[in-house]
Structure formats: structure tokens, C-alpha cells
């Protein structure tokens, strides 16, 4: 696009990018070499052997498969809830008239600035009194509740360009407000709903603070990783496998759907695409 590019640009950016992924390469190599060699540094070249021992042994060593299952449950449920509820709310705010509409809207879309730390103490006391500590819903409810601030905003932004003629046509055809949502708006808003799903899936899969506080044994992957690297410090290779398992799903999602994250960042900060 911009002519006369200096030659050095591409190699320079390439070198920076290679340096940038050294920690990731280190992680993969660590998981593939025997512990006797890692002790000399994962980059050491005196003897180089690759082994899948860590990959096969780790499953019996740590409850990794179980944590993977917990992570899936938490991330999927906390993702589906905003995917269903945020479009419904965005539609109500955008196309329907009711009392307190603007007040509720302002409250919800501004809540996105709240740090996760704010919910911890009250919800910890509430879950303790209800006996819900170590129940995955203790994490899912705040994950879902905190997502609406940006999710509603994202879908509502999209609806601002929604052709109003479609709504009017449906109204003329005697579609009620609910039918207009389910038959007209919902099927035509799959793009922002997908964006909500992808962003929320990443954030809930990676979340560490809420699981660490509210869960004890039903640990999702990041919380399990935090626990095992504190306790069994010497199994560097096996913890590396656990780390790869922890991040492989969100990293793939992230690389495939990267453009959603830039759009999501802009939504979070309020400017439109």
C-alpha cells in the first residue's frame, strides 16, 4: 500500500517476532526433553534427545483430564449464557420502549470498567452461606454477569445499523415484539453473537482469579497449573505439558479468530469499528 518500503523493515520485524515467541518455543521444547537435559537449560545442545515421556506420564500425575473437562464446562456454559441473553437485551434496549430503559442501559454498559476483584468478597460470603464454594456455578454466574457490560454494548452497536424496514415490515405482518426478535433480529445478528461467544470463551477459559477464590477441587486448567507448579517444582517437563494443554484451546481459537479481538477491544473502549 505504501510504496518505497525500506528493505530493512521486514527482517527487523521478523527478528523481533522470533524473539517474541522464544518463551513459547521454550515451553514446547521443555515438554519434549528429558528432565536431565532441561536442568542444563532447555536450549542446551550437549546432548539432544526428544521424548514423549512427559506427555504420557503427566495424565496420571495430575488430574489434567478432569481439569480439562471442568474448563470446558465452565467456559462453554459461561459463554452460552451471554450469547443467548445479550442479544435479547440489546434488542429490547434498541427497538422497544419501556420505563427506566435508558437508566438500566447506562448501568449495564458502564459496568464493564469493574475489576473482577469487586465481586470477590461479597460473592465469597454469599457462596459460603449457600454452600456453593467448589461448585462451578460459583464461577459461572459472575463470569456471565460481568460479561453483559461489553456483550450488550457489542450487539447493540451492531443493531444500530440494522435495517429498520425489516422490523416495520414484520410489524405490519402482525409480528409481536417477541416474534420480531426471534424471527427477524436474532437470525440476522449471528455475527455479533459469534464475536461475543469467541471473546467470552477466551476470557472465561483463561480466568484465574475467580476459580482460585471460589473453587477448591473442581479446578479448571489455569488454576490447576497455578497449584501444581507451586507444589511439585521439580517436574518442569510435566508442568510444561500441563501448561501447553491449558493454553492450546484458547490459543487456537485466538489465532483463528484474531480479528474479533481487535473489534472486541474497540468495543470495550467504546469506539466503534
Amino acid at each position, binding site marked *: 500500500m*505504501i510504496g518505497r*518500503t*525500506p528493505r530493512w*523493515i521486514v527482517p*527487523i*520485524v521478523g527478528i523481533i*517476532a*522470533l524473539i517474541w*515467541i522464544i518463551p*513459547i518455543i*521454550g515451553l514446547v521444547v521443555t515438554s519434549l526433553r528429558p528432565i536431565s537435559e*532441561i536442568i542444563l*537449560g532447555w536450549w542446551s545442545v550437549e546432548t539432544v534427545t526428544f521424548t514423549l515421556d512427559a506427555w504420557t506420564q503427566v495424565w496420571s500425575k495430575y488430574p489434567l483430564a478432569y481439569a480439562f473437562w471442568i474448563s470446558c464446562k465452565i467456559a462453554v456454559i459461561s459463554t452460552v449464557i451471554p450469547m443467548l*441473553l*445479550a442479544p*435479547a437485551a440489546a434488542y429490547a434496549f434498541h427497538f*422497544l420502549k*419501556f420505563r427506566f430503559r*435508558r437508566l*438500566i442501559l*447506562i*448501568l*449495564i*454498559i*458502564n459496568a464493564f*470498567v*469493574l*475489576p*473482577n*476483584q*469487586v465481586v470477590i*468478597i*461479597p*460473592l*465469597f*460470603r*454469599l457462596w459460603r452461606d449457600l454452600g456453593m464454594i467448589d461448585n462451578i456455578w460459583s464461577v459461572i454466574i*459472575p463470569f*456471565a454477569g*460481568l460479561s*453483559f*457490560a461489553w456483550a*450488550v454494548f457489542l450487539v447493540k452497536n451492531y443493531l444500530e445499523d440494522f435495517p429498520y424496514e425489516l422490523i416495520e415490515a414484520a410489524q405490519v405482518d*402482525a409480528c*409481536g*415484539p417477541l416474534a420480531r426478535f426471534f424471527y427477524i433480529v436474532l437470525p440476522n445478528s449471528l455475527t455479533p453473537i459469534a464475536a461475543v461467544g469467541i471473546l467470552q470463551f*477466551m476470557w472465561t*477459559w*483463561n480466568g*484465574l482469579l475467580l476459580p482460585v477464590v471460589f473453587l477448591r477441587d473442581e479446578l479448571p486448567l489455569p*488454576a490447576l*497449573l497455578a497449584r501444581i*507448579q507451586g507444589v511439585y517444582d521439580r517436574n518442569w517437563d510435566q508442568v510444561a505439558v500441563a501448561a501447553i494443554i*491449558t493454553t492450546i484451546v*484458547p490459543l487456537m481459537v*485466538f489465532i483463528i479468530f484474531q480479528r474479533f*479481538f481487535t473489534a472486541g477491544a474497540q468495543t*470495550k*473502549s*467504546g469506539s466503534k469499528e
Partner: protein
Amino acid sequence: MGGPNGPPKSSLPIKVKKQLSDTQAAWFLLTPLLIFFAISVVYPVIETIRLSFYDIRGLAPEKFFGWGNYLKLFSDPNFLTSLKVTFIWAISATFFSVTIGWGLAMMCSLNPRKTLVFRVMIFAAYGVSEAVSGFMWLGIYRPDYGLLNGILEGIGLSGWTQPWLGNPSTALGAVIVAYVWTQVGLPLMTCFASIQSIPKNLFEAAYIDGAKPASVMRYIIAPLSMPGVRVAIFINLLNSLKAFDLIFILTGGGPVRSTETVGFFMYRESMLNFKLGYGAASTVILLIAVLIVSIPLIMKRTGDAK
């Protein structure tokens, strides 16, 4: 819907299925969301503020404490340190991530196609779970077989090697470097997107006038990528104020609380020391800091909410 030659439907006494009014429909659609929102946003915010005025230790009954928690906070050297750490953390992490990301975005925009793979590589770090990033950087900073000390020894600077995370004077810097590594991808992408949306004829005009790449960068790309820079600064600032995950994995706030931000102080006081009221008061301070940073945005969103 009526046949082309039929009479207008409205004149017929047909039964129309009873429709909900707008208000009823709106509440039907909103209620489930509002329940989640009430439990996980409205109630915790109000309750955190209330609890910050109480003295609560573990399961003991709560005692009203007035401004006591706040007075204690501001005479607690640990809290004052955490304020200072949060400030250094937020400013330097935001400064370095945005500067590096912006610089890379400008370089990449000179040849978008050939740098695509490299952009994805740098952006990928932003997609790695923070817990996993922490584990990677532990491997770099380890005193015994860490990469950083290995490199320093390799180039003959063995005198510089040290336990990077165990030394109070280097720990904060080390954690910030790791944090910047995870964050740079975001400014890179938002700034890159801004640069891509600069009208192409501006560049053509500049080249026809004989502008060099350096001056194109200085006078066109840099000023016109500001929207992306602003988004990045805002998000980085907000994220770094709340930072928890990386500190939890890398240092746990130590050594001697040299890497403890307010977001982590809150966790230690309430969840490890069970001083819930005290922790709540520090959360309120964190909340105030976050709100101050977000004032422009909150005003914009409120004004736009039609």
C-alpha cells in the same frame, strides 16, 4: 397478507393472537439478564462498599467500624507500597506496551503483506493464558537453569546473573517485562487497524510531493494512528490496574511485597488473612482508581446511550 383482491384484513372480525406490549416483551427478554447482573454486579458493588465500613475477621460477627478500615489502610505501609507498585506497574506497563506495539504497527504497515505472519506471532502472546505466560517467564527468570541467566553467562556477564524474581529490587521490573510481553499484541493490532484506515491518497500525495518514508511516518502515519493508540492506552491502563494473574503465578506479591499491586493486596488481606472488611476497603480504593481512569469513557458511553 390478504389476497390481492380481498378486502382489507382490518375490516374482518378475525382473531389476532394476543400480543405482548413493548413493555411486557422488554421485561420478558431482560429479566434473566437482570438476575445475573444483580447477583454478580449490583449486589457485590453495594455490599463491598458496605463491608468496607465493617470489621470482619473470618467467621466472627461483623462489627461496625466507621472509617476505621480506611484510616488503617492509609497508615499501613504495605498498602502504601501496593499503591506505589500499582502506579509504577500501570504507568510503565502501559507506556512500554503501547510504545512497542505502536512502533511495530507503524513498521508493519509499511509492508502489511510480508509482515502478516510476524504480526500473528507477536499477537499470539496476547492469546496465551496469563497463567501459562507466567510459567514460561518463570523458566526464563529461574536462578538455576533460567534462560536469562544462561544468556548472561554465555556472553560473559556472569556477574549480572541473579535470582530475578527473588531479589526485591529486580522483581517488579521482571514481572513488568513479562506483563508487557503478554500485552504488546493488543496495541499492535489496534494501531495497525487505525493505520490501515488512513485514506490511501494521502500517501500518494505525499510521495508525489517527494516525501521520504521517515517523514511520511512522522507527519501522516503517527498522527493519524492516534485513535488506535488511544484505545490501546485505555485498555492497557484499565487491565494493568486490575492485574492479578501474572503476579499470582510469578511472585505471589513477594519478595517482601515488592510486586504487590492493590488488586493483589485485596486478595491477600481478604482471602489469605481473612480480613474481609479491610480487603473490601482496599477494593473500594481500587474501584475509585478504575473509575477515575474511565471517566471520559463513561461520559461518552452515557451520552451515546440512546
